[in-house]
């Protein structure tokens, strides 16, 4: 073997290929374009153009289910950035997802206008609680742009402040996981209270319209679906760009040998804070896309079990692969929607079993299995 001839010079790859195209290998680009065609062309046609009595028609139920699963996939992707690549297991990602959802929900609640049960300017739950005016933190939420800003800022700011203190105090491993779990539990309790001003345990529901369009109309549904698909594909590329960058290598290095990173002159606190905050923001955006499609947001989204489930999707799909967690979220949730219809009592057992089996036999998850099969072929 002549070593001298095969000297690797990673960055000296032929520069005829544009930088952007190098994000994915050629074969992966075909899948990527294929997914875009299915999501942005085939599904809308099947839902909107094909008549409802045709066997090819895509039902409202299916569109909502796939839209919902894509939102979960975005969350799993965000989880992979922080857990798979940086080695920080968050058991509180449900909070960021729910906060994004609540921010969007505030706008949707105000868009109901006087069409609520009590025909009041206030939301129904506020009338029910005998409130006379919106609390201050509901100010401006009648504007979509402001709600959209909150979707990004609230989870982002919470993650930034929480992360800053946690990472600066060098809280790591299982301790970090536990405090994130405590965080989501605390938020759930807070949002359960009627006095908090977010509808208590009922949360927000009965939305009527978004930006003036009826929220349950097939066209509106399809636009939300396509936006969710675009967000998923966009975040996949963003994630890919980050993990291939030098910063991505630093993140993996933090996961593998944090002291060496520190003694190499990088301050891990800021790198963790960056990816942690980004991950939270992505979850928030996902939550904002989820709420108008599903039509409800309530504090159960912040339950500790929900956040643990996110970690399970990621583990089942394959940590540190980006596409794996997306598949993991899809497989587990499709399984869930079938299972909870067929054997509703046993879903949690099935989930636990799946987690144990995949840990024992598929440590690299679905993505690892795929890679193994490809190698054999």
């Amino acid at each position: 073997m002549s070593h001298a001839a095969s000297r690797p010079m990673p960055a000296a790859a032929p520069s005829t290929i544009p930088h952007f195209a190098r994000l994915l290998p050629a074969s992966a680009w075909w899948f990527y374009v294929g997914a875009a065609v299915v999501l942005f062309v085939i599904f809308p046609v099947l839902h909107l153009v094909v008549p409802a009595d045709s066997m090819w028609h895509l039902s409202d139920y299916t569109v909502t289910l796939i839209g919902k699963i894509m939102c979960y996939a975005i969350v799993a992707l965000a989880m992979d950035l922080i857990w798979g690549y940086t080695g920080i297991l968050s058991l509180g990602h449900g909070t960021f997802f729910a906060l994004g959802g609540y921010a969007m929900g505030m706008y949707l609640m105000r868009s109901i206008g006087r069409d609520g049960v009590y025909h009041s300017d206030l939301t129904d739950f506020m009338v029910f609680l005998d409130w006379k005016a919106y609390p201050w933190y509901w100010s401006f939420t009648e504007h979509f742009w402001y709600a959209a800003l909150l979707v990004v800022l609230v989870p982002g700011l919470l993650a930034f402040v929480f992360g800053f203190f946690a990472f600066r105090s060098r809280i790591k491993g299982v301790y970090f996981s536990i405090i994130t779990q405590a965080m989501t539990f605390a938020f759930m309790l807070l949002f359960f209270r009627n006095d908090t001003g977010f509808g208590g345990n009922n949360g927000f529901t009965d939305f009527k319209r978004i930006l003036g369009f009826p929220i349950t109309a097939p066209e509106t549904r399809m636009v939300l679906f396509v936006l969710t698909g675009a967000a998923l594909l966009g975040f996949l590329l963003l994630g890919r760009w980050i993990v291939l960058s030098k910063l991505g290598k630093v993140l993996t290095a933090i996961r593998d040998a944090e002291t060496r990173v520190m003694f190499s002159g990088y301050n891990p606190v800021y790198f963790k804070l960056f990816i942690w905050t980004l991950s939270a923001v992505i979850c928030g955006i996902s939550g904002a896309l989820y709420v108008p499609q599903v039509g409800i947001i309530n504090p159960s989204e912040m339950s500790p079990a929900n956040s643990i489930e996110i970690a399970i999707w990621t583990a089942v799909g394959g940590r540190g692969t980006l596409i794996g967690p997306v598949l993991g979220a899809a497989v587990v949730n499709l399984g869930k929607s079938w299972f909870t219809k067929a054997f509703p009592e046993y879903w949690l057992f099935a989930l636990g079993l799946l987690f144990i089996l995949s840990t024992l036999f598929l440590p690299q998850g679905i993505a690892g299995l795929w890679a193994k099969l490809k190698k054999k072929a």
Partner: protein
Amino acid sequence: MTAAAPIREQWDDANAGAGTRVMTEGVDTSHKGILYLEEISVSFDGFKALNALSLLIDNGELRCVIGPNGAGKTTMMDVITGKTRPDTGTAFFGQTIDLTRLSEPEIADRGIGRKFQKPTVFEHHTVYENLELARKTDKHVWPTLRARLDAPAREHIAATLETIKLHAEAARPAGLLSHGQKQWLEIGMLLMQEPQLLLLDEPVAGMTDDETMRSAELFLSLAGKYTLIVVEHDMEFVRKIAQKVTVLHEGSVLAEGSMDEITANEQVIEVFLGR
């Protein structure tokens, strides 16, 4: 010694004219010394790991530090690199940089590189990427996100691969290297940081005789360009490279001098061989 001026300002050698000084950027070594530890004490739950330790290292020197287990060698390195804060005493890098006020990454950035006893490299990254990550550059978040591997960087990495003789392994994940190769890679990573001062904790532990010999050559070639502090148990190795040896015992300096002086010192013999 008067109490008025800190020792690092008095520390000057009449023989060292301005021309003989190794000029180092960032670090003020105008008084010849590069590292000044004065009266450093560190205790863990009452156990004095360092007991009023004072140590002066000249710029460009290769210093070996030996001592029995628990003598405070690793704690000393921890203090220098910011991992442990001393209870009392001062630690200065050059004339002006107070090490007790800086964090680990800041100290690394100022020019102190540290090799751990157990080789610590990024096992999932290739040898090449390990060196790329270590390379001296702006290591804040944004510049790191936007960083591209340019020609000077590639040359720098290629040169270091040559120095540590890992050219053939450049594309392999570092986790697949042999123990000795990992040691070398870690040293290569330190060199990529362009440090002024290198702290090497048992750099030849677990190496074959051949590797040990090549390491000795490497360190001797580095001395002068860099300042090296080598902590080592392997006396054979120390004898090969040592210019000046410091013996630590129970958290302070027991003896200092050439290898011959040290081996003739009765106190040292007593500590090492037992009474």
